[in-house]
């Protein structure tokens, strides 16, 4: 299970949440297909180009937030579920919700107001809420998936990524018609260049990451009062809506204004990331240090454990393959031990942690029992083998 240190239970113990997730995704996909199938039929080549660009941005976008998650990347199943929700349920539902609310603005406040302010008064509420629903569903499906605010940030960014790439595709198809279908390929290229190259840096992924951090704070079992957790989650959701409003608002004007909007949203998202990362790593090191007393994680291992590169160095040193496998197993068990203890008030934690400590002790014994073929096995940099006695 390398790459996914801990995983949530696989039993389908939340059928209602899974049902809502599946229905939401199917419904959203149906709306998108219904709305755009005729455009796709008439412009198949341009659609294929847009689809290729979508896959390209999706591939790169999927790697980034998972890579910057401290210690380990989140499991693929949760990550893919988030992207799928953003691509289908959130986007499809947003088409209907935005059309409805935009119409209300145009009819009650006038067409000029709706033209100028409609996007800023419509998209933040609808889209940030619909994307957030995906994270809440994920938390309801498996409470072990989101265990800290940083998990909420990463999964939120992935929901936003899914939304963003499909929105890019739909905007590209719309741009063909707005350009009078005079040069569909060029319309798609120009739309993607603007939305991926410029605005993409501070768009949906950033807003959803901020809102997701609040969900991470809300569902993490840290023993904080419910009122405080709800307040922080609401605050993050409102901040995400504020970022979205600023992104869509018709001021400031011009390309400098666009860059300013993108830049502000990017900086806000990264500041929230920095804070969530710092708190997560502090708690990680605190738990790892506490485990020195139990012998499960030695002080020198605690130093190396949070860093992917250091773990890989220890694991992949000049040793026989069985030894490397054993070292990898010890690392995985240690990471699971720390990850399980990150929430401060998880009632299932003490028993699980005790079993993990026993597992680590057993693995160390196996490692010590293996013959040492030659000189000391510490890799470059001096990282010791976890089983070395």
């Amino acid at each position, binding site marked *: *299970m390398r790459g996914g*240190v*801990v*995983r*949530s*239970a*696989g*039993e389908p*113990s*939340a059928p*209602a*949440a899974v*049902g*809502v997730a599946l*229905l*939401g995704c199917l419904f959203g996909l149906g709306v998108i297909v219904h709305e755009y199938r*005729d*455009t796709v*039929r*008439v*412009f198949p080549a341009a659609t294929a180009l847009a689809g290729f660009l979508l896959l390209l941005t999706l591939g790169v976008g999927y790697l980034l937030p998972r890579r910057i998650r401290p210690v380990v990347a989140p499991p693929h199943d949760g990550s893919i579920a988030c992207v799928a929700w953003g691509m289908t349920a959130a986007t499809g*539902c947003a088409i*209907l*919700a935005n*059309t*409805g*609310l935009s*119409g*209300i603005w*145009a*009819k*009650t406040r006038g*067409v*000029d107001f709706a*033209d100028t302010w*409609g996007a800023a008064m419509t998209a933040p509420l*609808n889209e940030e*809420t*619909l994307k957030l*629903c995906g994270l*809440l*569903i994920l938390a*309801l*499906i498996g*409470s*072990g998936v989101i*265990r800290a605010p940083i998990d909420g940030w990463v999964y939120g960014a992935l929901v936003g990524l899914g939304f963003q790439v499909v929105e890019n595709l739909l905007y590209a198809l719309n741009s063909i018609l*707005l*350009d*009078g*279908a*005079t*040069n*569909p390929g*060029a319309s798609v290229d*120009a739309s993607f260049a603007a939305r991926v190259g410029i605005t993409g840096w501070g768009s949906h992924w950033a807003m959803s990451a901020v809102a997701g951090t609040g969900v991470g704070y809300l569902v993490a079992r840290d023993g904080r009062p419910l009122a405080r957790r709800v307040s922080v989650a609401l605050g993050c959701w409102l901040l995400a809506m504020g970022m979205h409003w600023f992104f869509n608002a018709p001021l400031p004007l011009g390309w400098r204004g666009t860059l300013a909007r993108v830049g502000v949203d990017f900086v806000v998202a990264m500041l929230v990331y920095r804070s969530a990362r710092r708190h997560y790593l502090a708690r990680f090191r605190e738990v790892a240090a506490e485990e020195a007393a139990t012998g499960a994680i030695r002080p020198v291992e605690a130093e190396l454990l949070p860093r992917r590169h250091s773990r890989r160095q220890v694991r992949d040193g000049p040793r026989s393959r069985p030894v490397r496998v054993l070292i990898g197993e010890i690392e995985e*068990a240690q990471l699971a031990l720390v990850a399980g203890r990150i929430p401060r008030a998880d009632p*299932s934690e003490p028993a699980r942690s005790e*079993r*993990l400590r026993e597992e680590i002790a057993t693995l160390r014994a196996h490692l010590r029992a293996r013959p040492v073929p030659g000189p000391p096995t510490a890799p470059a940099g001096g990282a010791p083998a976890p089983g070395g006695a």
Partner: protein
Amino acid sequence: MTDARILPGPRRARWWGPLAVAAVLVLLTGGWPLIDSWISGDRRVLAGTVFRVGPDDDHRAWFRVGAGWILDRGATTPSRVFVLRHGDVDLSVAYISLPRAEDADALWTGLRDTLRVGDRNARLGVPGPLVAHAGAQGMVGTLVRDGDTGRAVIYPGPEDAFAIRLIALAPQATADPQWAQVADVLRSLTFTEEAA
């Protein structure tokens, strides 16, 4: 590996959590469109009203409507499109952005493709010349779509930086006086504010 590395599932069966999320989804996707449908989008327009279509001061055009026109506010976005109705005739006046000036040569074939999005059997006739009251040079052709007949007009803007597309459609038995009103609007288009 032991089961200890597998984190527990949901804390307890929470029916209200998924229900609340589903309620939010229904509220947003069904609620706004429902309220929107309750509000009438029609607004009667005064005879002689001049509308400006286009996103900014460098990319815009004006057109004038006579008596009896109704503006569909729900479908109108002044920077992009106006949707109006006069009796049985539906009229849309849309701004078309042209990424490159040479794309103006493809305006009519592009219009044919655009119409096929709404109706795969839509038919657009061969374009003929049309000169607006204020002198703008455009092209006009007959159009059949979704069982309705009408006319499509395209006026390329100054220096082919953009274009304005007007489409009027009505059931086949629509009376001539209504078409006369439409013809006035189609030829009222101008790219200069003074002429508007």
